[in-house]
């Protein structure tokens, strides 16, 4: 019997539940390994070789290489673990969070200074708020990336 997961209709949001946690076990443990300076150095020297040492899926490895945090989260990653990857790259939590919205760092920072993202239209999938699937990407960073690919 499927258990109740009422959080699946929240737009732009993945809840790190036991099922996601199981899926992302090695991805997140790889991230934890980056808390040690020697591992950070080995990872930076040869990302592919370092990632091969962890029994992750190829999709997880590719998402890490691309620093695609939305994809990492979809594949079982959790933001507090992924923050170790961000720290290795010298990025703050605000830079990491902003990177998942398609906004530039400046655009995201300005949104926060204006009081943050509004809840209006962003409570349920199917409304018209800026976090809804049909309104992605939200900013210039995402649009540039789209043009490039």
């Amino acid at each position: 019997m499927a258990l109740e997961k009422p959080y699946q209709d929240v737009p732009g949001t993945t809840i790190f539940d036991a099922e996601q946690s199981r899926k992302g076990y090695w991805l997140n443990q790889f991230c934890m390994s980056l808390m040690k300076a020697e591992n950070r150095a080995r990872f930076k020297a040869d990302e592919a070789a370092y990632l091969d040492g962890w029994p992750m899926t190829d999709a997880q490895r590719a998402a890490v290489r691309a620093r695609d945090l939305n994809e990492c989260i979809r594949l079982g990653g959790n933001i507090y673990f992924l923050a170790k990857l961000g720290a290795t790259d010298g990025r703050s939590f605000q830079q990491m969070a902003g990177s998942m919205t398609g906004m530039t760092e400046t655009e995201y920072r300005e949104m926060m200074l204006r009081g943050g993202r509004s809840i209006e239209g962003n409570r349920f999938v199917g409304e018209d708020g800026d976090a809804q699937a049909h309104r992605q990407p939200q900013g210039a960073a995402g649009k540039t990336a789209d043009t490039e690919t």
Partner: protein
Amino acid sequence: MARVTASVYTSHVPAIGAALDQGKSDEPYWRPLFRGYDFSKSWLAEQRPDVVFLVYNDHATAFSLDLIPTFALGMGERFDPADEGWGPRPVPPVFGHPGLAAHIAQSVIQQDFDLTLVNRMDVDHGLTVPLSLMCAGPQGADPAWPFKVIPFAVNVVQYPVPSGRRCFQLGQAIRRAVETFDEDLDVQIWGTGGMSHQLQGPRAGLINREWDNAWMDQLIADPAACSRVPHIDYVREAGSEGIELVMWLIARGAMADVAGGAAPKVAHRFHHVPCSNTAVGHLILEDT
């Protein structure tokens, strides 16, 4: 006998620690936030608690996915600030109160809460940022924090996390435990985390000032009703990381009115947006 004298509630955003450690607290971005704690610093210096029971969550620091306890009670003599990937914060280590912690373990587990007892763990920004916000004087590695700290880590990272109701009941059990400890100690209980924030996905950056304040109103006036707010309301209204607020209910459950006493005095209340990705909330309740 030991007694619970007050409860303190505050966000524990890591950027606050970074701002303090890098000497940025007088910059225009940060000044309004730290002003909100000016009262709190002098209040705490006057109160001089012997022990702070500090409820926080670990952010993939001491606990990896190898093992995540739902409720972890720090039993040790000493807990060091963790290296979260940016180097350890230059703040003093935390000295615990093993005697009171052992007594709380004995009492609270016998009241049907299955705590995990931890003798060794490093403590991350979830614990050290509230101390930095509340304690006056120079930070840095010396002098030591002015009281003993019992760390109490709650899992709010891997769902399902404990319900608000469970946290509220746990706070009541902790009060009963403290009140049966024979030493003459003033104990404060702090609940940390929140308020509205979301750190992931296209909805990152969500802030809901109106919900935060209504939730705080209810936490003060009708904590039993507040404890029945379901997880989904936190996620939907306050963001996926807003769920940290269930930890405030542990501190609220430990206040006298919940045990049949008088309503607490609201000594201080503060809300500020933004702090990095987060809405900062802060509250001080005194038992009267």
